[in-house]
């Protein structure tokens, strides 16, 4: 049971997490090293099945950046027993939703199905775990699809361009330097053999975690997993080099000039994450998490209250920190100044907010508010089986224990105002800071060229 105190109006909030909310999670490991985690959620007769591989853009190096993502696309393009796109057709015919996503630290595939169809997911995922066929012609086409994806997401999106350049500046030798989708030149030069080697290296049961959440019985799921994934052969996976980011010696600043209407500011400080932090500093990522909430946790947080409504310097501004990445990450602040204010004005206002965190303790009222939100969110998140599976899969795949998601609320509850002040002073310093500014170039619209009636007739 979680209990929170609310001081301001003199009453107590008892947030009772019912026994039903303490969902059953079962963990299994197959002989070939495949990990299976099953979480029961009997609210609806559905099941989500996700296969997580320990590989992503942070496993890549120059020349082949984005190859994990390209491989994710190729996983739909046929196996020894499935024609290109047949995987998707079978899932669709079984009423399923499916897709896949690649991040810096993981590649994951998922299907959401009516609960009796789980075997469809397992059969197909087992097939493409070891029996993918990478055809040269299919790769050439799919390379173009990925290039189009990159144009859509990055090349024609000025804020995304800035973000990409920001990461390439903040991280020098850490693989977080590279964009997940890869640099265009690398995309244009993948060869089928590159993809085959990457697949051979990382796609094996001993490098995968299968997460199942839904209206299922764990033992039944385990038997099903043994049937389909059990026969797959383990692989000797490569040991990753540590690629520890070099020490930063001062502020880094970049500017990107691109066709755009509005300027944009990004500021990021290198900070520890749960995976990289020393045992005696295990509280630090949670203090940074609460700090992010103080700045940007809801419409009453300091950014919305002081920078958007109060001083009216920011049109929009946000703070972001992910405490469960595999390598050291940045604590990011990004926003757009209002008309009449500059990026420099906004940066100054952000720095004033940071200085306040360094010199003044956050109020008990703010701290309670953030903690209440975290407890409430832990309930709200359970409305989505997909999200629950995501949490488990992500934690396991970056090499943490899925039970951390249960401990998260407690760890946040334990954060004190002093700890927030301490991490602000330790980490929000120039030797950790990178700033990036988007400078808009005129877009130069020409008059639209209207062709009425029939030039493009069918």
């Amino acid at each position, binding site marked *: 049971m979680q209990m929170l105190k*609310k001081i301001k109006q003199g009453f107590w*909030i008892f*947030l009772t997490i*019912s026994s*039903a909310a303490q969902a059953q999670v079962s963990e299994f490991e197959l002989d070939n090293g495949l990990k299976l985690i099953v979480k029961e959620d*009997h*609210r*609806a*007769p559905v099941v989500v099945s996700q296969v997580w591989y320990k590989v992503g853009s942070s496993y890549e190096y120059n020349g082949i950046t984005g190859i994990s993502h390209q491989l994710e696309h190729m996983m*739909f393009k046929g196996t020894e027993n499935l024609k290109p*796109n047949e995987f*998707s*057709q079978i899932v*669709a*015919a*079984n*009423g399923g*939703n499916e897709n896949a996503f690649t991040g810096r630290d993981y590649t994951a595939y998922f299907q959401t199905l*009516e*609960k009796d169809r789980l075997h469809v997911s397992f059969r197909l995922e087992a097939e493409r775990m070891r029996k993918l066929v990478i055809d040269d012609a299919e790769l050439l*086409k799919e*390379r*173009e*699809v990925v290039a*189009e994806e990159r*144009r*859509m997401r990055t*090349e*024609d999106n*000025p804020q995304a361009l800035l973000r990409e350049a920001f990461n390439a500046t903040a991280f020098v030798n850490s693989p977080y330097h590279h964009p997940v989708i890869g640099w265009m030149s690398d995309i244009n030069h993948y060869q089928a053999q590159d993809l085959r080697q990457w697949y051979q290296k990382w796609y094996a049961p001993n490098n995968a975690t299968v997460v199942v959440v839904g209206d299922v019985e764990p033992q039944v799921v385990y038997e099903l997993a043994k049937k389909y994934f059990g026969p797959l052969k383990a692989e000797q996976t490569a040991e990753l080099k540590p690629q520890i980011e070099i020490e930063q010696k001062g502020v880094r600043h970049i500017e990107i000039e691109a*066709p755009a*209407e*509005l300027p944009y500011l990004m500021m990021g400080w290198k900070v520890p994450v749960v995976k990289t932090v020393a045992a005696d500093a295990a509280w630090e990522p949670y203090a940074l998490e609460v700090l992010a909430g103080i700045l940007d*946790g*809801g*419409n*009453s947080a300091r950014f919305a*209250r002081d920078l*958007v409504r109060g001083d*009216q310097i920011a*049109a*929009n501004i946000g703070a972001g920190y992910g405490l469960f990445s595999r390598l050291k990450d940045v604590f990011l602040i990004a926003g*757009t100044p209002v008309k009449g204010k500059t990026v420099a004005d906004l940066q100054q206002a952000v720095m004033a907010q940071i200085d306040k965190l360094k010199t003044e303790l956050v109020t008990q009222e703010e701290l309670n*508010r953030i903690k*209440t*939100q975290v407890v*409430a969110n832990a309930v*709200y998140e359970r*409305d989505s*089986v997909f999200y629950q599976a995501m949490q488990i899969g992500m934690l396991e795949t970056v090499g943490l224990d899925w039970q951390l998601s249960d401990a998260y609320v407690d760890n946040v509850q334990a954060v004190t105002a002093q700890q927030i002040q301490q991490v602000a002073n330790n980490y929000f310093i120039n030797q950790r800071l990178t700033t990036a500014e988007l400078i*808009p170039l005129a877009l130069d619209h*020409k008059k*639209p*060229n*209207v*062709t009425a*009636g*029939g030039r*493009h007739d*069918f």
Partner: protein
Amino acid sequence: MISKIWVVIMGLLLSFTVNASPTIDHWQTANGGQVYYVYTPELPMVDVQVIFDAGAARDGDLNGVSLLTNALLNEGAAGMTADQVAAAFDDVGAQFGNTSQRDMAVLTMRSLIADNALKPALDVFGKVLAQPDFPQASFQRIQKQLLLSLQAENQSPAAIASRRFYYELYPEHPYGTMPSGQVDTVSAITVDDLKRFYKQYYVAQNAVVVIVGALDKSQASDVANELLGQLPEGDKAEQLAKVEPLHSAQTIHIDFPSTQTHIVMGQPGMSRDDDDYFALYIGNHILGGSGLVSQLSNEIREKRGLSYSVYSYFRPMQELGPFQLALQTRNDQAQQALDVMKNTLTSFIKNGPTDDELLAAKQNISGGFALRVDSNKKIADYLAMIGFYGLPLDYLDNFIDKVNAVTKQQIKEAFNRRVKPDKMITILVGGEAETK
């Protein structure tokens, strides 16, 4: 608190009734608001939505007034400042949201059901709904933000294409503008306009309340009364004008310094209560509504690698919402991709789906029905749709039967009668093909 045993029983019940949709209760408040309620006891939370027929279709000459009115509601109410309203929700972990589209103006709240969370959250939600102050200073700030976001649209080829598409699709209809308004109209709007708009449309007769969560029916009834009870009865918004069909094809190219050309093509499509709803819905599912396995995806992406994202959809609205096909591709491939998209559409209209395609679509839709209502959030969104558009309470119960009853011939006939490629609007936003 829910016992584990109860959950097990619930699980067993569900496992015997795989396709059972949620049981919907519906009633009216004393002042004429429509309430739709589903009991979901498993999680100690509740989702509440209040929907008004007060979207941008009601803007009139003041394009943007609907969105501004909606955005100002939580900027100060019953004497509370914007900061106090925000803190009141955040203090108890409640999530408040507001949005305004063409048909609907929506307010949402998600809260824990513990008394000391739900009571304060409902209290401030009720004030936001019934006693907004429309402070002048807040209005000026939100107005400036909106003008800035209108400017930001001009750096997005997708946003430029979408705005122009609606403008050309609905030359004489209120659906032809964007909810975010235009620079001149947004600049001209005043607080008094917002107050007038609010007074006319934010009334009980014009409201639907959706409640999904671990509240029993009498608690849900109290919630609805508390929220709507403070509103005047008022009048339901008038019926919108009918959408006129397009008379000729038009292709518009807008130059933009992007590496891709965004292509949007379409025409007025169907309404929520359309007689052809299921034939058009399933037909489109096969044509471009089913992700990687649709005909359009197969032709554009799988066979030719021309685009990452290609799709078509009908957006059913109060009156005829758009039927839209879209993709983005490298500038020098724009014409080729457009040709393939058009050919795929004309061929589908001419031939209709195959037996296999229709079977696969039905299997996909009926086999996946349980996924449509597997969370409180999804159930609440369905209730909002059913309530706002006045669909029958058994809409979800009959959904699969209606899908399964659709024939190949009905799809072909409906597409032939309703979809007119020779009268469609085509918008291309992008740059010149680079010479290599």
